[in-house]
Structures are given as structure tokens and as C-alpha cells.
């Protein structure tokens, strides 16, 4: 996948975490296989549709989702409740929106769907497009999160 697209995903993800979640993620994420995502149990995805198209998804464990929610709200959350699902969906939404803004500066345009959040064990996803896919593993604050982008211009 193009370096400019990867850079936009990295900057969007680290910016969202730094500003809204108070976690500084490593700015050099490791590329990973899609099979690594099966350990996560929470996925939030946003569809991209237009001249460019694809799916952006954010993946984390329940414990990391709880930490994300606690940090965003500034008050402790202890269980994987609706607030956690809502917060993880909003993280995916912010990363996708930030990515959209950056890609528009490169002349690539698309609209965003509202986020969909899935919670479960050992599920996998399959996209119907032949678009290239990248999975990036970010680490920071003792947590590991993944962003997967399936994107075609």
C-alpha cells in the first residue's frame, strides 16, 4: 500500500489517541497478519464509499476498550458495557474522519458510514473488494491496538 496512505493512518491513529485518550502510541507500528486480529474480541468498522472505497476497522481487547473508555470519559469504567462499545466505535469514527481529511488533501475523496461495533471471540471478516489490505499494530501505555485498512482508489 502507498506510503502516503500508511502515513495518514498512522498520524490519524496516534493523533486520536494522544488528544482524546491520553495514550501516546508508538509512531512506527508493526505490519501484522490479519490472523493476529482474532485475539482482540472488539472490532469497530467504518465503511468508505465514493471515488475511493474500502473499510477501516479498529481492533482491541476488552480490557483495552475499558481503558480507552475510562480515559475518554475521565471516570473509571469496569465492565464491557454499552459505553465501551460506543467509545470504541467513536475511536474508529475519529480515525476514519481524520484519515478522510488527510486523504482529501491528496485528492482522494469518499464518504463515511456510521461505525458498526462487533464484540465476540474468534470471528473473522471478509471483504468483497479486491482492494489492498494492511494491518498495523500500535503499542503504547501498556496496550496493543490494531488498525486494519482495506482501501482502493
Amino acid at each position, binding site marked *: 500500500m502507498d506510503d502516503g496512505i500508511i502515513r495518514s493512518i498512522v498520524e490519524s491513529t496516534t*493523533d*486520536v489517541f*494522544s*488528544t*482524546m485518550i491520553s495514550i501516546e502510541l508508538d509512531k512506527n507500528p508493526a505490519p501484522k497478519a490479519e490472523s493476529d486480529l482474532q485475539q482482540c474480541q472488539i472490532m469497530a468498522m467504518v465503511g468508505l464509499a465514493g471515488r475511493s472505497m474500502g473499510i477501516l476497522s479498529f481492533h482491541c481487547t476488552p480490557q483495552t476498550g475499558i481503558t480507552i*473508555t475510562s480515559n*475518554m*470519559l*475521565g471516570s473509571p469504567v469496569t465492565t464491557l458495557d*454499552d*459505553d465501551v462499545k*460506543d*467509545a470504541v*466505535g*467513536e475511536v474508529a*469514527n*475519529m480515525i*476514519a*474522519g*481524520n484519515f*478522510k*481529511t488527510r486523504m*482529501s488533501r491528496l485528492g482522494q*475523496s469518499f464518504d*463515511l458510514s*456510521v461505525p458498526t461495533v462487533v464484540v465476540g471471540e474468534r470471528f473473522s471478516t471478509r471483504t468483497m473488494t479486491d482492494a489492498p489490505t494492511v494491518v498495523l499494530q500500535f503499542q503504547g501505555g501498556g496496550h496493543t491496538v490494531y488498525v486494519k485498512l482495506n482501501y482502493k482508489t
Partner: protein
Amino acid sequence: MLGNVLIVDDSAVMRKIVAKSIIQAGYVFARVLEASDGYEALHQISQNRFDLVLTDVNMPNMDGLELARIIQEMNLDPPLPVVIITTEGTEDKIHEAEGYGVRAYLTKPFAPAQLKAKLGPILDERQEA
């Protein structure tokens, strides 16, 4: 003290974050009311008087830009200031929002200081009115 503020977002967590950010920015409103889409927001506006509407754009049923367009057409006196808080910061969205009389446009993620910088001139003007 300011009157009421309406926070419109389909994410309950984001509504809580915006409400918290307003307080962190140093503004005190009589009441903070919430709506999860544009339709709910219009219902709230028909039932209450507001000094400010803070709305997301990308929501089901009625989005924030349509809400801003309808509020502009209502010709309220004094005009009800609308501020967009959204993930999307593309030039075409910002331009469209300006066409609907939106007073300020803030992209998520945002820090409370950025919110304060956007709201300051609007709320100072409102308090003087």
C-alpha cells in the same frame, strides 16, 4: 450564567465528553440537554430556549448539516448559534456548514482549549446580548 446548551451526537460517550469539555473550558450553563440526531434536536429546540447548539455531522435519521440548515431557516431572534463538532474536516463540508450559518467548525479529536477558542467569541457575544 448562560442559559441552556444542546449537545447533539449519536454517540452517548461523545455527548458526555463534549459536556465535560464545556465545563473544563470554564463555561457554566443553566442546563445541558442532549439529542442523538437532528430530529431529536429540533424537538428539543421547539420545547426549550437555547443559547448554543453543539452538533456532530454524521448521524442517522438527520445529520448535523441538515439540522443547521433548518435552524437557519427558522430565523430565530436572537439567532441560535450552531457549532459543528465532527470527525470530518474536509473543505467541502466546512464550506457547506458556513452556507448554513454555522458559527464555528471543530474537528475531533479536540482538546478543551480548542473548544474554548471556538466558543469564546460566540458566548461572549451571547452574554452581552
